[in-house]
């Protein structure tokens, strides 16, 4: 094993495009706007950037050579570039790869970016390509699979819809302290609002799901040495991990679960070991929350509680600001908007910089961030977990 990468690199810039339910700009423009703002936030010029990583856009036809095209449009000459796709786990994976590339001497300052236009040319992509073993049965997109997972979790552990609702209510409350959040204007919601929201795919209701968001965003990663001389205090990358499996459909081997059902544990285990800290040291967390049930599962699989305890955990208000584990303080995917998980990294950085005003966690020094993705609707259905531990 090589030398530990703990605290060798830092996040020094964050930036987002205009974002919302419908932003009539191309995937490329959304991407470029995010990059521009992140580079400016770092106090750098584009000439200082020599590494570029992109999350491959989901729209067919936009993928080929995407990273080179983004670089050309930005006017960046990089010595290290790559396009990545592990779904919503990609933004964190980019920060991880940037850290490795910098330490391998490939480059010094890396922009990690994504762009997401849900309706290119005004055409909604509500029917992503499924595969032959799902779509003939009327099964489409990522949400229904999480409905299957939620049903199974309810069966195994007695998890309830109201407990899932508690996640939505908490994160909305946080979004109401974030004027940038997509759901800011909508105001707070109650458990009853959640219970009364329409069923989408049983047992998931409308408020169990993140909204559709057109957006672009980026973070800038550089060496710890260089980070000390930039605009903001460096936010160090202290731990990182990943775990991939065919859980649920093709279970592999996590003995903590009766059936090897949810297998993200390694992603947290590796990150905590690298950072040399434990769960109780986390001051603020940002969990990938495309769906409410996912937060419950992540709390369990990452070891913040035992399998089956995720439901009661969220119901007891521990994720709220002022609670034991203040989480998704900007509102998360559920209420800030679906920023593909880049928003989670950015909010952790803001918290550690102390920029969060009303929603600031007092004296936040250590943040846990997670990403989640994979192939939720194309066989063989498979999943990716990614984690970061950030410190100031």
């Amino acid at each position, binding site marked *: 094993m090589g030398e530990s990468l703990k605290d060798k690199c830092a996040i020094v810039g964050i930036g987002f495009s205009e974002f919302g339910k419908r932003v009539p700009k191309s995937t490329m423009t959304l991407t470029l706007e995010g990059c521009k703002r992140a580079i400016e936030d770092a106090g750098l010029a584009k000439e200082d950037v020599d590494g570029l990583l992109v999350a491959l856009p989901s729209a067919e036809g936009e993928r080929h050579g995407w990273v080179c095209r983004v670089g050309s449009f930005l006017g960046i000459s990089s010595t290290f570039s790559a396009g990545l796709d592990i779904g919503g786990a990609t933004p964190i994976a980019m920060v991880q790869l940037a850290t490795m590339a910098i330490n391998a001497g490939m480059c010094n300052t890396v922009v990690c970016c994504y762009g997401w236009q849900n309706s290119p040319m005004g055409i909604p992509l509500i029917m992503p390509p499924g595969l032959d*073993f799902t779509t003939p*049965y009327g099964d489409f997109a990522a949400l229904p699979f999480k409905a*299957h997972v939620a*049903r*199974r979790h309810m069966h195994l552990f007695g998890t309830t819809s109201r407990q899932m609702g508690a996640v939505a209510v908490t994160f909305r409350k946080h979004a109401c302290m974030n004027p940038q959040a997509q759901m800011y204007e909508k105001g707070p919601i109650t458990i009853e609002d959640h219970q009364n929201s329409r069923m989408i*795919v049983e*047992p998931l209701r409308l408020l169990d799901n993140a909204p559709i968001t057109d957006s672009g965003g980026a973070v800038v990663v550089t060496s710890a040495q260089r980070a000390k001389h930039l605009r903001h205090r460096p936010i160090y990358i202290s731990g990182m991990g990943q775990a991939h499996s065919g859980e*649920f459909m093709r279970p592999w081997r996590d003995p903590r679960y009766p059936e090897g059902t949810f297998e993200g544990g390694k992603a947290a285990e590796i990150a905590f070991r690298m950072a040399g800290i434990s769960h109780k040291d986390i001051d603020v967390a940002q969990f990938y929350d495309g769906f409410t049930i996912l937060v419950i599962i992540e709390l369990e699989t990452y070891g913040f509680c035992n399998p089956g305890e995720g439901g009661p955990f969220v119901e007891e208000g521990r994720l709220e600001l002022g609670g034991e584990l203040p989480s998704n303080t900007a509102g998360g995917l559920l209420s800030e908007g679906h920023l593909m998980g880049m928003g989670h990294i950015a909010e952790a950085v803001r918290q550690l910089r102390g920029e969060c005003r009303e929603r600031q966690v007092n004296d936040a020094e250590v943040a846990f961030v997670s990403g989640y993705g994979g192939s939720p609707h194309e066989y063989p259905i498979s999943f990716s977990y990614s984690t970061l531990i950030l410190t100031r």
Partner: protein
Amino acid sequence: MVGKFEGIDIPKPTPTLTEDSEPYWKGCKKHKLLIQRCKDCGHYRFPPSGICPKCTSTNTEWARVSGRGKVYSWTVFHYLYHPAFSKDIPYNVAIIELEEGPRMHTNIVGCSNEDIFIDMPVEVVFEDINEEIALPKFRPREKQQ
């Protein structure tokens, strides 16, 4: 979204046969559920692929399986993702676990959505779609069978 596509007659999506999946779908058309079995370690795998995920052997046979299984999880769609399913809403999609191990998506037929439960014993039944395709679906099965 429900109602948006009313009056539009759009066919349901049907599988496209590939090098990997052709024997599976040809079996279905004959109303036989064929699943790949590794000739080296005996592991049953689904969906079809060229390599055993348990032992990486490429030595494979297509085995006719029992067609029996149980419901692993299930959902009911209230949101219309595809116009071809507008008349079916609310419809179920289940993941069943075959006795031989593999899990697969399907629809449960022969009972109402309210009567589906986890671990419900089911058996395969084939629905002819066109000259090339029959879809394996599953219906409730008496336990003693």
